[in-house]
């Protein structure tokens, strides 16, 4: 057996903001090809933990390993180009058209992305090639986030990080885009870490759900285990919300 390093590993990772411990000595490993959801209330430290992977946040102590190597050994911009990053604000560059936005990552390392590849990336997020020449201001919120996903995948990353990626979208768009991203994850063989405060979304999309509370890991379970009542009080209080809603909806039908 060839021993493989886990895709991402946290080792006693700790981050303080002044007096507040945002991430408190977290240790865990994320396996290749897994889709992991980081769930928790606002201020639980889930976003901060995510950002230690691509060094938008540097831990105060402990370390983060990517494929066995400490992320701090790499040059931060160089590291980020190898990791896809999608966040709630999307942050399309308003002075660049869609094609330029998608091609920005390869451009930074001196590669020109061919038109066919841009069309392919657009198709991956269910947009046709006519979008390539549009400006971000001409797009709806859902379309922008689709472009955001396409941009994150342009450099063929192994890892996709998503920070509340669908938080600002309407429920229909949100559902469609969530499914789309899960399909891309499977097709491209990505390792995906998604931060969300929506337990339903986490249960439906992820293979593994990590629940964070006050900087610590409160639960680490599969969706099935959580629905079966495992994972402790904090996790169950979050699972209760969608479950109660589902039961109430079922009651309306019955």
């Amino acid at each position, binding site marked *: 057996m060839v021993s493989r390093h886990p895709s991402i590993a946290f080792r006693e990772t700790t981050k303080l903001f002044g007096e507040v411990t945002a991430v408190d000595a977290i240790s865990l490993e994320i396996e290749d090809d897994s889709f992991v959801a980081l769930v928790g209330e606002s201020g639980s430290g889930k976003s901060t933990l995510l950002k230690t992977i*691509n060094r*938008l946040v540097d831990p105060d102590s402990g370390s983060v390993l990517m494929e066995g190597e400490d992320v701090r050994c790499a040059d931060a911009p160089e590291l*980020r*180009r190898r990791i896809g990053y999608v966040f709630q604000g999307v*942050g399309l*560059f308003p*002075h660049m058209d869609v094609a330029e936005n998608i091609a*920005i990552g390869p451009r930074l390392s001196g590669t020109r992305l061919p038109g066919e590849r841009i069309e392919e990336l657009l198709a991956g997020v269910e947009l046709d090639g006519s979008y390539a020449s549009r400006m971000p201001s001409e797009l709806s919120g859902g379309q922008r986030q689709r472009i955001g996903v396409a941009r994150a995948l342009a450099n063929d990353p192994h890892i996709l990080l998503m920070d509340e990626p669908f938080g600002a979208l309407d429920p229909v768009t949100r559902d469609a885009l969530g499914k789309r991203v899960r399909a891309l994850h499977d097709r491209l063989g990505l390792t995906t870490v998604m931060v969300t405060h929506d337990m339903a979304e986490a249960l439906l999309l992820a293979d593994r759900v990590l629940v964070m509370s006050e900087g610590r890991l409160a639960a680490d379970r599969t969706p099935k285990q959580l629905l079966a009542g495992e994972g402790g009080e904090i996790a169950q209080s979050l699972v209760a919300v969608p479950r109660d809603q589902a039961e109430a909806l079922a009651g309306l039908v019955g």
Partner: protein
Amino acid sequence: MFEALAGLGDKLAAHILLASSAIALGIIVALPLAVWASRSPAVARITLGFASLVQTIPALALLALFFPILLSLRAVFGEGLPTLGFLPALLALSLYALLPILRNTVTAREHMAAGVLEAADGVGMTGWQKLRLVEAPLAAPYIMAGIRTAAVWTIGAATLSTTIGQPSLGDPIFAGLQTQNWALVLAGCIASAGLAIIADSLLGMVERGFAARKKWLIWTGASVAAIGIALSAWSLRAQDEDAIVIGAKSFSEQYILAQLVGHRLEEAGYKVEYRDGLGSAVVHNAVTTSEIDISFDYTGTVWTNQLGREDNPGREQIYRTIVDWERDTTGTLVLGNLGFENAYALAMRQDRANELNIATINDLARSARGLTIGGDVEFFERPEWIAVRDAYNLNFARTRNFTSTFMYDALTGGEADVISAYTSDGRVAADRLVILTDTKEAFPSYDALLMISPEASQDARLVETLRPLVGAIDVDSMREANFSVDREDNKKSPREAAENLAKKLGL
């Protein structure tokens, strides 16, 4: 009026070069500062604070302040450092241009969407790539708006650089104000305002080009501006380094004397340039440091301001002392006394003096408590006034400052009861003013002097060309020449007045 406008070609070119250089320097300094400020709140506070502070200094004072600053910097950079003209004007105006560019750039950075900056980091931009690909293009329209504001301010403020010896569109404005030649004033204002409007619309075009991402707008605006600047530089290319520079303070007599000397030197084959409208304090320093070659001063002025004397040992003694002092301390040649005196004197309207029964300054002291005295802008700060005030114990109800031209109008119009008149001024006779007798001789004498800079005094032929002027101009002729420029009707230009004066005196 059109004639006046047409004659402004050189001034316009000099103005364009000065203003565009100042804006360019302002941009070169402001942009890196703004980038630094956008990364450090402390730097932002300090730079914006400094730039705002500079803005509160009146432009006229800021320009004047660079003279002593550059003078003291000569200790570091050597005697070759210019203290008047282009350099100080450039530095002062660039400082003035800083604030709008700096503020707009910092504001643009503050208002940039946080998501866009996070995305720039997230996709893996280095600091430099982020600046070049995201921050600069997004800030460009704001920066251009700042540059537009700076350009309009700078073009306006550049008219004031006349006072420190830099040719500009301020030359006709200052000369026109002094000689009440309103066509000249208007021509200067229209040219400067027109230039500001043109610059603003060209830069506006560039700004719109950045905002709408239309490259042709950017290129059109920038190219037209660049062509204008290049044409100005080209038209000024033939500036002669060896020209003799004649300085003049900002009143008619000085303009006429400058033209008289200039004409004479031209006939002797010299190239001549004029620096009209220099501040009185600047002139003495300029000639003693060879920044200008020739100036006209008055014994009393040098006596009190440069030698710091308050006593009055008599006309001849004062003159001798000044000649020796200039030779020994500054190396400047006092070629001689031109032959007339332009003294400060207190003057009143005939009817008012009769009514109050005033003939001497002593008489005036009795009634002063109920009267208003008007002086030119510097009079009440001058040691002569302080000496006279203390000698006669003068105590006026009000003191008011006027430009020397409006001072006479204020007296005839009754807004002042007494003014600090100049004895060679044509308006003293024309307005039939009474000069109050200075029984205590508190005012020193003010014989007009022809001064030649240490450098120019090495030129024996120049000195000999000018020597016939010594003792040649009597006070009546000077007064008549001054009046021909100052009067309302049949106004002469300083050049015409100088020609008439030369003809009359057989020079």
